[in-house]
C-alpha cells in the first residue's frame, strides 16, 4: 500500500518518487513519496535497513537521488549548486544519535561554533550571548558551560547537541535516532525536550528518525513508516493502531512494549 505525496503548499519537505541506488543494481529507496507539513512533528519509523537514514540524508542534501525530486522549503535540492546547498543547510538543525559534539571544544564553544561560522556580522560577546540563551532554553546548568563533552553526562550532551542545532534558528529540526541507547529516564527526558522545543518554536518543522515506536507515537503528530525503500503508511498514531497492514500490525505489537 503506497502512499502518494499530496501537493500541499505548506510542505516543509516533499519527496516525489525518489529512488536511490549506490551500486547501480540494488535500490535502497524504491520510489519514496513523502510530504512533511510545515510546523509538524513527523516521525519516520521502520525496521533496520529500510532506508530511514538514507531518506534523512536525502532531505539534508548529503545524497543525491538517482531519480525523483526532493523539495525542501519549496526549493528543489537538485537544482542547487554545491555552494548554494552548503548555505541552504543553515535552514537545518540536526541532533545526532551520538550528539556529535566536537570533543576538543567546551559546551559553550560547541554552541558558538555554527554562529562563528555563519553569523560573521556578530561580535564575540553577541555570539556568546546567543549561545548561552540556547543552552538556557534546553535547561543546561551554566556551571557545565565550560566543560568538555567528555566531562558531562549523556543527557547533558544531548541538550548541548540540541542547543547547537538551534543556534542558527533553523526552519527544520532533525532528530536522528535521538533516544537510541539511552535508559528509559533519559529517553523520556529527550522526548520531553523535543516536545518543549517544538512548542517554544511554533512554525518549526521537526523530523525524527527512530525505530522507537513508543517515542514516535508519544511525540509526533504524523508518523511515516518505511519498508523496503518505500513509505508503507503515513498517518497519526491512531491510524497505526487501526491499520490492517500486516507489517504495521507486527511493528506496532512488537514496538509498544514500554
Amino acid at each position, binding site marked *: 500500500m503506497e502512499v502518494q505525496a499530496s501537493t500541499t503548499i505548506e510542505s516543509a519537505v516533499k519527496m516525489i518518487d525518489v529512488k536511490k541506488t549506490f551500486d547501480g543494481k540494488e535500490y535502497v529507496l524504491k520510489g519514496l513519496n513523502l510530504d512533511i507539513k510545515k510546523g509538524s512533528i513527523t516521525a519516520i519509523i521502520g525496521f533496520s535497513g529500510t532506508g530511514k537514514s538514507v531518506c534523512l540524508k536525502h532531505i539534508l542534501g*548529503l545524497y543525491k537521488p538517482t531519480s525523483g525530486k526532493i523539495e525542501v522549503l519549496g526549493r528543489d535540492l537538485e537544482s542547487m549548486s554545491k555552494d548554494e546547498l*552548503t548555505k541552504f*543547510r543553515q535552514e537545518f538543525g540536526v541532533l545526532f544519535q551520538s550528539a*556529535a559534539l*566536537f570533543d576538543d571544544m567546551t559546551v559553550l564553544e560547541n554552541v558558538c561554533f555554527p554562529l562563528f561560522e555563519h553569523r560573521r556580522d556578530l561580535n564575540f560577546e553577541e555570539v556568546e550571548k546567543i549561545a548561552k540563551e540556547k543552552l538556557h532554553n534546553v535547561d543546561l546548568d551554566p556551571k557545565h558551560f565550560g566543560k568538555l563533552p567528555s566531562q558531562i553526562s549523556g543527557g547533558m550532551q544531548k541538550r548541548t547537541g540540541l542547543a547547537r542545532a538551534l543556534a542558527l534558528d533553523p526552519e527544520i529540526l*532533525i532528530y536522528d535516532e535521538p533516544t537510541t541507547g539511552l535508559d528509559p529516564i533519559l529517553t523520556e527526558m529527550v522526548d520531553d525536550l523535543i516536545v518543549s522545543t517544538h512548542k517554544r518554536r511554533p512554525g518549526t518543522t521537526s523530523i525524527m528518525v527512530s525505530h522507537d515506536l513508543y517515542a514516535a507515537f508519544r511525540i509526533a503528530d504524523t508518523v511515516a513508516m518505511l519498508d523496503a525503500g518505500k513509505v508503507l503508511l503515513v498517518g497519526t498514531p491512531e491510524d497505526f493502531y487501526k491499520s490492517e497492514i500486516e507489517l504495521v500490525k507486527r511493528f506496532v505489537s512488537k514496538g509498544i512494549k514500554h
Partner: protein
Amino acid sequence: MELAGGISQKFKGFVTEVGQMSIMLGRSIRLVFAKPSRTVEIFKHMEFIGNQSVGIISLTSLFTGLALSFQVYLGFKIVNATNLVGPTVALGIFRELGPVLTGLIVAARAGGAMAARLGTMKVNEQIDALDVMGVNTVQYLISPRIVAAFICMPMLTAIFDFVAMVGSWFLCVVLVDLDQAVFLDRINQTVELKHILEGLFKSAVFGIIFALICSYKGYNTTGGAKGVGEATNRGVVISMVMIIVLDYFLTNMIRAYYVFSGDVM
C-alpha cells in the same frame, strides 16, 4: 585465476584511491584561497606539526649526526681521507637524511595523530555534523593540515640539518680530534646553498604527501574504533613508504634539472 582476480581488484582499488586523493588535494589547494579564511586553523596545526615536533627532531638529528659521522670517519680513515668526513656527512644530511628522516618522524608523530583525530571525528559523526552545519569539511579539516605540513616540514628539516651538523662537529672535532679548521673549511668548499634548498624542497613535498594520505585515511574511516586504528596504521605506513619511494624520484628529478640547466652537481 583467483589470484589474478585478487590482484586486479587490489590494483583497481589502488588506482581509485590515488584518484580520490588527487581530487582531495586539488580541492584542498583550491579551498585554501576560498572564504572564509582558515588562518587560525592553519596556525593551530602548525603549532602541532611544527612546534611540538622540534624536540623529537632535535634529539634524533643529533644522534643521526653523531652516528653517521662516526661511520664515515671509520670508513674514510682506512683510505686516509678523514678531512672529507665533514662535507660527506653534510651533503648526506642536507640532501637525503634530513628531509627523509624528518618526513618519517613527523609522518609517524603528526600524521598518525591526524588520521586518528579525523577517523574519530568521522565515526563519532562530528564530520557529518560539520557537513549539515553548512561547513565545507575539506576546507575546514583537510586544507589547513596540508598547508601547515607544507610550511612546517622545511623548517623542521632546517632544524634537523643544523642539529645533525652540530652532532657531526662534536664527533669529528671533540671526540675523534679532527682539525676544526679543516672540518669547517671543507664543508664551506663543498656545500652550496642549492644542496640545502634541495632538501628543503623535498621535505615540503613530503609534508604535502603525509598530510594528504593521513587526512584522507582518517576522513574516510569506517567501522568504529577498529576502523580508526586501521586508518591510522595504514595512513602512517603508506606515508612512510611513499616518502622513501618519492625521495628516489625527486632525487632523479633534481638531478635531471641540474643536468638540463647545465649546472655541475
